[in-house]
């Protein structure tokens, strides 16, 4: 019976989607790499010259934004772990029958468009707005105090927008812990903090790891939060890339920066994976 058909089946199934990813993911990346080594301008056109200098110039010129983005990404990720872990922990262990309800409530805001949500924060955080306005008129804050335009606003926005991507993986990891394992630890003379440290934390670590993977990259490369909530002193590399592409039409520099950003992030991610000793990055990420 159709042995050859059976062997071919997976390839036939993968073909359309795989072709799509090849055409619109792999090849564009190659095109971008090629474009980053070209020279010229948008009016007279670009030609391939293998001009590596573009990378050097781009990184030197925009090192501030590049470093800032990585710092914002890292701070966001750390804050996310701190904010998300207790929530995931409480829902996983105390949520009881209401677990799905709590998760649903956590996800609820994300039914609103990303852009709209972020803009909504602008309304809330604005200098004379519903948060600062009353505090200022009550004299608690000085008139010139502001949140918008600061790093705090940008990082808060990032934390806000990526929270579910940290809560869910940690929750899934914690939820899978057999409560009897914790009981066994208590039975074997571990006090609650020790049981937490020696049993729960190690078992939750894969979730944290997945969460970091899912938040660090998008947070570092984000440009919407900084554009909406930040100011020129919080400019992130994403904004620079976006503006090089979509305002200046300076494709080689933009491509070089994109590639640099991706390389830095991917190296970071894999180094992190190595450091944590997690071999199968993909499995964790795929969860």
């Amino acid at each position, binding site marked *: 019976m159709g042995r050859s058909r059976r062997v071919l089946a997976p390839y036939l199934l993968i073909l359309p989607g795989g072709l799509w990813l090849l055409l619109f993911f792999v090849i564009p*990346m190659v095109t971008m790499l090629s474009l980053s080594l070209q020279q010229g301008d948008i009016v007279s056109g670009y030609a391939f010259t293998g001009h590596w200098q573009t990378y050097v110039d781009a990184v030197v010129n925009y090192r501030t934004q590049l470093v800032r983005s990585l710092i914002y990404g890292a701070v966001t990720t750390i804050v996310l772990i701190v904010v998300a872990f207790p929530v995931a922990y*409480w829902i996983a262990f105390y949520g009881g029958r209401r677990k799905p309800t709590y998760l649903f409530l956590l996800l609820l805001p994300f039914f609103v468009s990303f*852009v709209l949500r972020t803009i909504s924060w602008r309304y809330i955080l604005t200098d004379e707005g519903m948060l600062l306005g009353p505090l200022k008129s009550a004299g608690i804050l000085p008139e010139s105090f502001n949140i918008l335009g600061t790093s705090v606003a940008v990082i808060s926005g990032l934390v806000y927008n990526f929270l579910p991507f940290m809560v869910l993986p940690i929750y899934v990891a914690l939820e899978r812990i057999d409560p009897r394992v914790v009981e066994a630890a208590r039975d074997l003379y571990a006090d609650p903090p020790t049981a937490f440290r020696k049993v729960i934390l190690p078992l939750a670590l894969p979730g944290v790891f997945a969460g970091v993977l899912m938040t660090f990259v998008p947070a570092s490369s984000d440009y919407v939060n900084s554009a909406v909530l930040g100011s020129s002193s919080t400019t992130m590399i994403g904004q620079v890339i976006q503006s090089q592409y979509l305002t200046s039409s300076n494709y080689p520099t933009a491509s070089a920066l994109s590639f640099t950003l991706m390389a830095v992030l991917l190296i970071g991610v894999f180094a992190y994976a190595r450091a944590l000793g997690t071999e199968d990055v993909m499995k964790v990420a795929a969860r």
Partner: protein
Amino acid sequence: MTQVLEEEETAVVAAPRRSRLTGGRALHIYTWIVIGWLTLPVLVMILFGFNDTPGRYNQTWEGFTLKWYGQVFALDELTKALVISLLVAVATAVVAGALGTGIGYALGRYRFRGSGTVNLIMFATMSSPELVMGASLLTLFVSLGVGLGAVTITIAHIMFSISFVAVVVRARVLTLDRSVEEAAADLGANAWTTFWRITFPIIMPAVMSGMLLAFALSIDDFVVSNFTAGTTTTFPLWIWGATRVGLPPQVNVMGTLIFLGGVLIAVVTSIRSRPRRPAA
């Protein structure tokens, strides 16, 4: 998202009683604070949909009105942007649903040479910055001299959605009892009938939640669309463009309606997929 809602309800209380009274309560309050923080901007958005603002700038509270709900489609361009967003999202859900299901099914069902490469590319699409994906697509289209528009947006959205659908479907296929398919063959069904009558209906919930995910990713996407839209405007792009002069209240109204629609779908899906108790 729906995946999470499908989590079975298991009443498990793990922590010891003592910490339940102390740490548990503090964490309970903390969780509600976080939920409140998350929900605040949504409430503000909904609230300002009822703002009786006299002009086109919707920024200070002027009083309650329902008039914007009556005039929700008064701005042609906004309406058109929303329609484009919906069309792109539906096309994305359907095509990415089909292509992603193919990949997910193949990865879950067969062992074959090259599956590692497919996994790697999927991982790459899911972990690459959206910005870089959008930018690289732009360079491709520019290099090929392809005009940008709804078609290129859809192409891009399908591209980044495929992997998510595939992952969701693969997870389901991996738990699929192979003997069910054999049973169908045994009862006289050929491969085609077996797939459509048996396998597909069983993995259907996963395909559906994959498609919903693709729909949600597409309708919410700003970054990739921004690079691939050309002269076409989607809902998020319109908002982005309009925000520099102030958002008209219709945006809040549409945002609210989309929000309610999403919530409704999620609730219905979670109720329908709730496992019924077995008889014995």
